[in-house]
């Protein structure tokens, strides 16, 4: 027998009934999409999408494809974690892709080796005094870049009341400009071995490790700390948050600073993994990150979503991209479908909102 209580209006409420978490729906969608690709693979390609049917690997899975999917989403996923909390707070961050570009260039120039095969580094940005530096230098410089970008975003949004869309759009263009100006468009290469570990360590699993670690950390922060509670409250009803005594402006600055620093961290991982930095790095990553969050159930109107959802959204995103490659479809289709998925996810969110109150 279930425990019932009577509430306002004499309505009966069944206290034993649990609310179905939205994350389960998203996980269901992930499984469904994998199944669709399995069926299409069997019909069109005569092979399995994620399973090892040719005995090439030690397990039942196609380990190579799984690794590529997970690695692919890890770097943008780090950005998506920061974007998730921005969107939950009722904002948006369009600058993260460009911040990746600028940060990669600047950090890499402090991570270069002095000599390549006995010759002076052909891509050297600075003089010898700035070469062969310990890895902590480019890491700190990189994170500082993200901090500054996030701080400018946050201050503009919190204190001048410029809409987040516009403020971060400005940062998107500016940071890309910085990335190009930094080395006059030249790529920056030949990092130290220790810098190369950031993206290649742990047998190539380092980016995944960093992504998963940060995802767990931020899931806990959003759920169990005052910071998280206030982020949801502000996105849910900014006036109410203000009237409840939350220092809304200060909180928003912190939200954008954290987002900027996560984008910077993604830049460190990416440039390290590629062993080079280019001004065009991270183009469109901001949209991929937003897409991951929205697919993962983070509501663009703020107040709802979770990092776990975003991680699932990132996996869905990765599976779809990889699935298209698997089916040997043109890259053009990928872009078109990506666009359709983003719009579809937003439509779904609107639909969820409209019917949420009727459940």
């Amino acid at each position: 027998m279930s425990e019932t209580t009577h509430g306002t209006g004499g309505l009966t409420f069944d206290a034993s009934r649990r609310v179905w978490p939205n994350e389960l729906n998203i996980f269901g969608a992930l499984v469904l999409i994998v199944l669709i690709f399995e069926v299409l693979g069997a019909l069109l390609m005569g092979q399995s999408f994620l399973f090892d049917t040719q005995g090439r690997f030690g397990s039942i899975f196609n380990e190579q494809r799984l690794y590529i999917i997970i690695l692919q989403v890890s770097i943008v996923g780090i950005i998506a974690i920061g974007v998730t909390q921005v969107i939950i707070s009722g904002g948006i961050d369009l600058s993260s892709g460009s911040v990746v570009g600028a940060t990669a260039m600047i950090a890499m120039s402090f991570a270069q080796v002095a000599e390549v095969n006995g010759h002076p580094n052909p891509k050297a940005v600075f003089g010898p005094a700035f070469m062969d530096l310990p890895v902590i230098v480019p890491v700190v410089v990189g994170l500082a870049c993200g901090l500054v970008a996030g701080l400018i975003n946050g201050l503009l949004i919190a204190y001048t009341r410029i809409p987040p869309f516009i403020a971060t759009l400005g940062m998107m263009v500016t940071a890309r400009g910085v990335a190009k100006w930094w080395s006059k468009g030249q790529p920056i290469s030949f990092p130290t071995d220790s810098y190369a570990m950031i993206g290649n360590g742990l047998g190539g699993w380092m980016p995944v490790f960093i992504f998963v670690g940060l995802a767990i950390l931020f899931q806990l922060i959003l759920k169990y700390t005052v910071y998280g509670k206030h982020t949801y409250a502000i996105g849910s009803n900014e006036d109410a948050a203000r009237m409840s005594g939350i220092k809304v402006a200060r909180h928003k600055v912190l939200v954008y600073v954290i987002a900027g620093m996560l984008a910077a961290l993604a830049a460190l991982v990416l440039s390290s993994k590629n062993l080079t930095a280019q001004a065009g790095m991270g183009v469109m990553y901001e949209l991929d990150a937003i897409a991951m969050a929205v697919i993962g159930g983070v509501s663009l109107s703020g107040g709802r979503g979770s990092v776990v959802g975003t991680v699932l959204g990132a996996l869905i995103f990765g599976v779809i991209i990889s699935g298209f490659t698997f089916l040997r479809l043109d890259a053009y289709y990928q872009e078109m479908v990506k666009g359709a998925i983003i719009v579809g996810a937003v439509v779904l969110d609107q639909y969820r909102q409209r019917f949420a109150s009727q459940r």
Partner: protein
Amino acid sequence: MSDDVILETRDLTKHYGGVHALEGANFILRRGEHVAIMGDNGAGKSTFVRQITGVEQPTRGQIIFDGIPRQFSGPIDAREAGIETVFQTLALADDLDVPDNLFLGREKTLFNLGPFSILDYRAMREATLRGLERTAVKIPNIRNKIRNMSGGQRQCVAIARTATFHSKLTIMDEPTAALGVQETAQVENIIRTLKETGEPLILISHNMRQVFDLVDRIVVFRRGRIVANLNKQETDPQDVVAYITGAKTGAEYQDAA
């Protein structure tokens, strides 16, 4: 001023650009006293509340609370001074549940790590249940998000938030506007409890029956000004209506109106 005054405003004024929403309000509330503020829509009642609770900064005038002249920089300031408020807009976060809303901006924490302090969910839930019990507010499921609650339930949550915390002054801006008969009776009981424990109250209401049932004194606002200050014993509903509509103006306020 004498010691038994908890709140006094002098010449309290708020202009929104050209809109004179509140003009020269001189208001006094004594300890333990329950006062109703009445007036037509747009008379400036909520504006008055926003000035004394630090939500907005007055254009001019003085606020003396608990014997000290105050300039509340924000709502938390006013709350820390001891003013608990149910705003007309309720000020609830839709995507959070009942304990989250009760403790919004004053969360109970386990460890102090600045903004990253760990929330003490259990303590907040227990305090919420105790508070609801004390105020006899019935919410079927406190884990339910405000979004999924009826207008009346939302109002109950907002009122429970005020009544859960001990305060030197409680302000309720139309607390029963969306409530059914039973829930209105509940809120009125909460107000009576406050009266018994000697906590002063400012009640904004359009409900004449309720006002005459509950308060000691009625202050009437009209077009941003106070136009009457009436002891319940010396007035009746027709009289109050006459002040609200402008048919009458209190002798001491003639020049103001």
